[in-house]
Structure formats: C-alpha cells, structure tokens
C-alpha cells in the first residue's frame, strides 16, 4: 500500500501547508463566530479576514516554502475582501434586503478558504493534489459568484460558472486519468514526461498519442482557470454578474491559481524545448495559437463594451493572452515573467475594481458613462484611476509597460528558434493598440464628459483610498525603478 502511494503521488511535508492551515483556521473561527455571536457587526469579519489574508501574504514571502504565486494569491484575496468591506451597502441590499447585514458574514470568510486552496495548488507536485486544491478554489467560487441572491445577475453568473466549471473539471479529471493510464503515475515531473514520450507503452522513439491527449486535456483545464481561448466563454458573463468583490477575486486570485497550475503543467516539458523535437514544436505552436486567439478575443471583444465590469472581464482575457506569450518561449524564465506580469495586472485590476465598486455604490451604475466627469468632481481619485488603466494599457513609466514589453521581447526571443511564429507579432501589436482604445474609454469618460447637475463628488471610503493610492504608487515605482536602477 505504502509503495503504491509513494509511486503514484509526490510526498509533502506539513510545513508546506502552514499558511493554508492558518487561513482555514481563520475562516473556521469566523464562520463559527458568524453563527453563534450575533452581536458583532459583520463588517468586523471582513476586516479580520482581510488582515488575516494580508498577514499570511507576508508569511509566504518570509517563510521557508516561499512561493511567488502564494504571495500574490494571498494579497489578491486580502484586497478583494477589503473591497467587500467597502461594498457592504450593496451586499446588504442584495443578500438580506435593505440595510440588514444578516447572512453577509460568510461572504467575507469564504474567500479565505478559496485562497487556502490556491496555496495548496502552488505546492502541488502531483495531479491528485492539483485536483483537490483546485476544487477547493472552484467550489468556493461557485458559492461566492451566486452569493447575492436578491440579484438576478449574480444568480445567473453562479449557475453559468457552475455549469461551465463542471465541464472544465470533468476535462481536467479526464486528462488526469489519461495521464495516469499512459505514465502510471500522477507525479508531474520532467523525467516522467521524457520516459513516457521516449520509451512509453508504444514503440520506443515514437510519440505516445495517449499521453499527449492527457496533456491536451490538462492544459484545457488550466485554460479554463486563466480564461484562455477556447475556455474563456464563462468570463464576460460571470465577471459582469458576480458581486464585484467576487469578480475581483476571480480576476486576480483565481487567475493566479490558473497560471500556477499552467506553470506546474508546463515546467516538465521545459527540457524538451528544442527546435526540431516534435513535442516542442507542437507545444510552441499550440501555445502560439491559443495566445493569439486569446489576445484577439479579449482585446477585440472589449472594444464595444459599455459595462465597466464586463470590459474588465474581456481585459482579463486579453491580459491572459499576453501572459500566454511567455509560455510560447518554454525555455525562458516562464515563472518569473508570469509572476511579474500577474503582479502588474493584479495591482492595476484591483484598483480598477475598487473604482468600479465605489462608482456602483454611489452612482448606482457600473456602466462606463457612470464615470463621467470624475476628473472634475474627484480629480485625485480620477488620477489614481488613470494610473491603473494606463498600466493595464501599457503606458510607459507604469509597470504595465515593462511587463508588456517583456511579453514582446519574449516573443522576439522565441522567434529566433521558431521563425514560424512571426505572425503572432502583428496580432500582439494590433491587440495592444486596441487595449489603448478601450482602456482609455474610461479615462475619456472621466475627463472629456462633463459631470451632470445631479453628480455629486464621490466620497471615497477609507480602504478604497488606501488601496488605490498604494496600487498607483506601486505601479509607478515598479514601473520606473528598473529605469533608475541602471544608475552606476
């Protein structure tokens, strides 16, 4: 029995999961308190949960088992709970009705559970752990997406996410089954890949088609999480319908989980990334096509959106496309580059969602035109919003520019070995240009459109102000520091 276990799956230590256990612990305490202590205001749970997540984020950086994705996931979760803290007015109205905060407690505790799932996922070295931790994330997300039960959009989003998510889970498990069947193990490791492809169950030297089938299905499962074509279909509807804090969580934390998974799946293939090797050619080609499709769908689909949340949904698809370009260059530093890009994306997207939530709470709309005249009524806030959208668009001196440039450089590097990828470059250029168009729609609404008579200046909640300022500063500092850093 023991033999089979060590053969099939990787071994873990308890220490690897300490941050996850801490999160689960906090979530359990909060859920108990929510059930039995009625006197506490629910917002207190939000604050506790957020602080807990952010503290664990610090722990993941300093701890023994540091992992960049864990840090990013905790940070994103903490920030999205902070957003929920500022969003209570809408939450109360959409859950219990009126200003009654009954039933909102779990809304703040559940993201912690999902985050714990992501932390486990980042440590996963075999497909069983991948599946279990991924399901922790996904199942929690279904609940969170449909949490606003008085809001039809939220329920619809929950259902759609559940159905399409179930499909993707099925595909992933199917892939895992094929993987086990072809290689005889669940462990994700380059030696397994090489052994299976070279001397697998089929004749030596030929490519095991069944194993590639497994790889394809596993990739598709990961594509669902990151929102890459063709598994992107859930994103616009779910992002638009889900409660804004949940959308934020899905857009940043869940996407981080997806890329952590994709990295774990791709890394075993890195040693094979030599031009001429059949698997490598095939993987480069597939990632190129998926990246191109994702870029086109995300960026061109965003052009005509008028709802800010839906726009950010398409934007998250488009940004995922730029990250996928890193995966085309398999032999490059995929993980580091992806982390950098996700960092820039997280900082800018979180700030953007905070702005949307604030506008939604105070102007009652998530349409782009609800941002009208913010440049006049709230010049400082408007500037912070400009920074985050400029970073998403990739304006120089923001971090978004550097990471987008890294994406271009990555493609140019890989083109030296695989010249057949030249066609991807114009697509990247066109989609990056399209990004300028739709991100600047919001900036245009803020500065070019005049505020209407009934538009009062927005009152910026404390957390929103802090987070947006911090994000803007981080984006500019991280975007300019490498330029200054060359001082000698």
């Amino acid at each position, binding site marked *: 029995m023991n033999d089979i276990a060590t053969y099939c799956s990787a071994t873990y230590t308890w220490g690897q999961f300490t941050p996850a256990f801490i999160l689960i612990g906090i979530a359990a305490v909060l859920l108990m308190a929510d059930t039995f202590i009625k006197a506490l205001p629910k917002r207190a749970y939000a604050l506790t949960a957020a602080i807990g997540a952010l503290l664990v984020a610090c722990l993941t950086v300093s701890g023994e088992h540091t992992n960049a994705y864990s840090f990013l996931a905790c940070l994103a979760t903490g920030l999205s709970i902070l957003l929920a803290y500022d969003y209570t007015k809408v939450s109360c109205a959409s859950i219990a009705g009126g200003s009654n905060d009954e039933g909102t407690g779990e809304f703040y505790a559940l993201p912690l559970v999902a985050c714990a799932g992501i932390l486990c996922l980042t440590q996963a070295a075999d497909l069983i752990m991948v599946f279990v931790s991924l399901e922790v994330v996904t199942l929690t997300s279904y609940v969170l997406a449909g949490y606003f039960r008085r809001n039809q959009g939220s329920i619809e989003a929950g259902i759609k996410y559940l159905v399409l998510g179930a499909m993707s889970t099925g595909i992933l498990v199917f892939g895992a089954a094929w993987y086990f069947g072809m290689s005889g193990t669940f462990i994700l490791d380059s030696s397994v890949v090489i052994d299976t492809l070279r001397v697998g169950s089929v004749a030596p030297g030929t490519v095991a088609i069944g194993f590639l089938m497994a790889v394809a299905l596993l990739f598709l499962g990961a594509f669902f999480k990151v929102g890459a074509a*063709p598994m992107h*279909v859930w994103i616009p509807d779910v992002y638009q319908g889900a409660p804004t804090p949940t959308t934020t969580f899905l857009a940043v934390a869940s996407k981080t989980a997806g890329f952590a998974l994709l990295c774990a799946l791709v890394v075993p293939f890195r040693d094979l990334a030599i031009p001429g090797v059949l698997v490598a050619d095939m993987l480069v080609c597939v990632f190129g096509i998926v990246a191109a499709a994702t870029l086109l769908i995300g960026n061109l689909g965003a*052009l005509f959106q008028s709802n800010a949340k839906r726009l950010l949904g398409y934007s998250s698809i488009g940004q995922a496309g730029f990250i996928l370009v890193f995966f085309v260059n398999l032999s490059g530093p995929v993980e580091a580059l992806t982390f950098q890009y996700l960092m820039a994306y997280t900082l800018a997207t979180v700030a953007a969602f905070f702005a949307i939530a604030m506008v939604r709470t105070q102007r009652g709309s998530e349409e782009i035109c609800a941002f009208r005249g913010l440049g006049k009524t709230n010049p400082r806030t408007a500037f912070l919003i400009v920074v985050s959208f400029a970073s998403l668009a990739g304006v120089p001196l923001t971090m978004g520019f550097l990471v987008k440039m890294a994406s271009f450089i990555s493609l140019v590097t890989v083109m030296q070995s695989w010249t057949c990828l030249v066609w991807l470059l114009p697509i990247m250029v066109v989609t990056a240009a399209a990004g300028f168009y739709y991100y600047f729609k919001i900036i245009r609404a803020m500065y070019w459109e005049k505020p209407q008579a009934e538009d009062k200046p927005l009152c910026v909640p404390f957390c929103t102000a802090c987070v947006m300022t911090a994000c803007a500063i981080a984006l500019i500092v991280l975007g300019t520091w490498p330029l200054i850093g060359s001082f*000698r």
Partner: protein
Amino acid sequence: MIQNLPWLFLVLPLLVAAIDWVVFHKCPKTAATLSILSALGTFALCVAYLSGWQTGTPDVYTWMPMASGTLSLHLGLTMDALAMRMMLVVTGIGLLVHIFSLGYMKGDSSNLSRYFAGLSIFMFSMSTIVLADNLAMTFIGWEMVGFSSYLLIGHWFHKASAADAAKKAFITNRVGDFGFLLGILLTLGVFGTLTFADMGTAVAGVTPCLLTVTVICLFCGAIGKSAQFPLHVWLPDAMEGPTPVSALIHAATMVAAGVYMMVRLQISMGTGAFTETACMVIATVGAITAVMAAIIATQQDDIKRVLAYSTLSQLGYMVMAVGLLAGEAAMFHLYTHAWFKALLFLGAGAVIVCCHHEQDIWKMGGLARRMPVTVLCFLMGTFALIAVPGFSGFFSKEAILDAAIVNHPAFFWIGAGVAAITTFYMTRLCLVAFFGSARAHGAEEAREASPTMLLPLLLLAVMAIISGYGFVADYLVPAEGFSAPGFHIGFTFYVSLGALVLGLLAAIAVYGFGKRSSDPLGNNFIATALRKRLYIDALYDKVLVGGLQQCGAHIIEFIDSALIRGLLVQGLAWLVGRVGILLSWIQCGSLRAYSCVAGLGILIIIVLIAL
C-alpha cells in the same frame, strides 16, 4: 555619494517643479517659496563649488544602455570653469528673478503655482544645457528650455497674442532645432562621439568640408535659440510673457545658450575645427542680426520690444565674436550682458507694474521724479548697455571690438556702427519714458516699486557697474583661465567713444528732454518699415505660412485623408471593430452557445496536440 551632489543642480528644480505642479497647485505661496528655495539652494551650491569646494567627479548615468561597444547615451555633468561660472549667472539671475516675480506677480489672477513651476522647470532645463557633458544631453536641455519658454510665454494663455507668441516661439525654434539635430547626427557620424571631452582628439583627419557642414548645422541650433537672423522673429513676440520671464529667459540665459553651446564646441573641438567658411557664416549672421535689430529698435514704442531688439542686437555681437574665434570675448559679453540686460528688463517690469501695465513709452514720461531708485537702476543698466566707459558693458564690448579689428576690420566697423545706434535708441527710450512730464494717467500715479522688486534691481545694478572690472571678471566670467583685458586708450577706444557721443547727441537733438509727445522721426516710409519690423514677419506669414504651408497642407491632406486615415486607420479600425462585434456577439449569454464554442475549441486543441 557626496560626489553626486552636483546632480542636485538638476534634480532639485525638477523635483520642485513637479511638487509645485502636482501638490501645491492651489497654494501659490508655498509653491513660490519652494521655487525660491530651490533657486537659492542651487545658487548656494554653485557658489560653494566656485569657491573651491570639491566633491570629486559625479557619476555618469547610462540612460539608454545598449550592446557594449556600440553607442549608448550617457547623462554626465561637466564641472569645468566654463560650466560652473555659467551656472553662477544662471542661478544668480534666476534667484533674483524668482524674488522679483513675487512682487511683479502680486495680485495677478492667473495660477501662480503654474508660473513658479514653469520657472523651476526652466532652471532645470537651463542647468541641463550648461552642465551637459555631451551633445545628446545638451539637446535634451535644448528642447526642455524650449518647452518651458513655451509655457512661460503663454502664461497668460487666455490672451490670444500670448498664446500665438508661445506657438511662434516654439515653432520657430523647431526649425533651428532640426538643423541642430542634423548637426548632432553628423557629429556622431563624423567624430564617432557626442561627448565634449572626446571631441578634441576625434577632429583630426576629418575633411574641412565635412567639418564646415557639421559646424554650420550645429550653428542652426544656435540661430534658433539665440534668435539670430533669419529666425529672430520669435524673440520680440516672446515679450508677451511676464516681464521677469523675459528678463530671465529671453534676455539673460536661454537666448545666450546658443552662444554658450558654440563656445563649448569651440573649446572641445578646438578652434581648428571651425573652418574659415564656417566662421565667415557665423560672423556674418551675427553681424546682420546686430545691425538689423539695432535699426528696428530705433522705432519701437513698446519698452519691452526696444529691449528685446536690443537683446537681439547684443546676441548678434556675441555670435559675431564666436565667428571671429574670440570665444572668450563672446562669453565676457554674454556674462556682462546677462546682468545688465536682466537689470533693464526687471527695471522695465517695475516701471510697467507701477504704470498699471502700460508698456508704451509715449504714455509714460516724468518717471524719474516718481520712482527715482528704479529709474536710477535702469539708467545704470542703460549705461552698461551703451558702453559708457567704466561700466561693465564697456569692457566686454571693447573686448569684442578688439578681437574684430585684429581678425576682420569690416566687422569692427559694423560693431562700432551698431554701438552708435544702440546708444541712440536707448537714450531715446530713457529720455521719453523718464523725463519731461507724464503723458498718461498711469504714469501720473506711478510710485516707487515694492521692496521685493527693488532688491533684485539694486543687486543687479551693482553687478552692471562692477562686473566688468578684473577683480570680479577674473573670477566669474564663464571661460577657462579668463583674465579681463587690460584697459588701454587706443584706436578702438576712440572709435567706440565717438560712437557713444554720436548716438547720445543725435538722440538728445531729436528727442530733447522728454518735451515731445510723439516721435518726430515717425510718419515716413522708413519709420513705417521699421515699425513693421522690415516686413520680415509679414513675409514669413505670406510665403511660409500662406504659401508653403498651404501647398504642403494640400499634399499632406491627401496622404493623410486618403491613405492614412482612409485606408490604414479607418480601414483597420473598421476591420478590427467588425471582428470585435462578431466576437462579442458570440458572447450572447446563452449557456448552450458557450458550451458549443468551448467544445469546438477543445476539439481543435486536442487535434492540434494529439494528432
């Protein structure tokens, strides 16, 4: 770390400009204080370095690192005597102008934070030019001063004339900068380096023809920035800006940057690189500007325009000196001129404010009795400008004339003639504006200027008197190993004294002591031509703006509308838009459609990977 202290010259004003602009845009007092403190800080730093303090070589910042062995752009600081003494002029006059602005802009309804941020950004840009250790960095500063000058000329942008003047200055400079950029590229191509320190060795072996072209191209930059003929048209219009700005940018420092740059090149390339043809071109352009501007100045009524044309004419002198390979004399004149011309402009500013923003000298009169200190300071500046023996301008003009008579007697006589005309129009200005009786209501109510305005005037007046003597000049003139030319009574002295007396007598004979109420020389065709600035501006308007631009506009319009907008932009946008609509149409909200799309995609991926 300490060796990087000189970077403060650039960082401090830039930082202050940003803070003024972003943080204190609604608190003009704080913004003004910060700007003045930054000017004071850089001035103090400059004084410290000039008095022998040393901190070692500042680090070089590699701005655009490129593959090793090929070109990469550096930002470095030159700290030689030429640069540091020039910095003293820039920061010193800058500081006084900052202080003067406090009084001058008091009660102005425009945004003063913007004004002071503009001044600070100018200080940054000018310091960049002065301290640059290579031509690329010079060019950055060159464009930045253009930009700050644009901001400051157009400070009162709601006035159409100010907005137009700002535009005119910017565009005219663009023409010169185009040549300058060509020159920089040629330098890079011919010498293989842009760093001033490496140019000396690189010159050897370059053909004279190539050298001539390079130098003339670089000189184009100076033509634009120092407003030499034929690009001089922007400077008189730039007087639409606030007067302290005119004093700092359009008299003392920025317009002198062209001369500074040419002298810097002369030193680093060596005078051998300035071939005879190039020198002839430079000296001729300078001489033409000097003569033409001086003549036009005799018929201007606006006190600032008289001074503007006089600046043009004096810049012509300096450029002429550069062309005569007398860089030292040019820098000497630049330095004395900076002090006394700043004094004249600030004096004019004080007069303008006290006469309720009246600039027409024919509507002044009798000011000597009402604001004696201001007028006295102004007269000191005038004496320096018309080269009364003993004043600073006298010594530097002698230096140029001495250089001219040795090198090229023709330029000597031109210089002497310009000196006579200068005396004539400045005496006319003083007689009409300060003597006689008030000719308008504003002048009747004029009172002495406020202390914040008087203090800079007095300090500048002192400099206007003493800065030419050896005991000051030897330490402050921006030139390597400078020693003030010993004064001797000789041929040039007699000639320039003659020019002075001639101009003085002519002006007194024509204008008396302010008894006339209109110009007796006006109302003939020469006067009209001079008032219309010899029709040069009109010619530019007709030929360049009207003709070339219209013609060019048609061609560009065709390319723009048919090819670029029609085919490329709109066509591409149309295509992209259609695809976008198609894509968002797939996203119709139907779960079945979604599953279908995803299923198809899954099939494609599996086929791609597994088969």
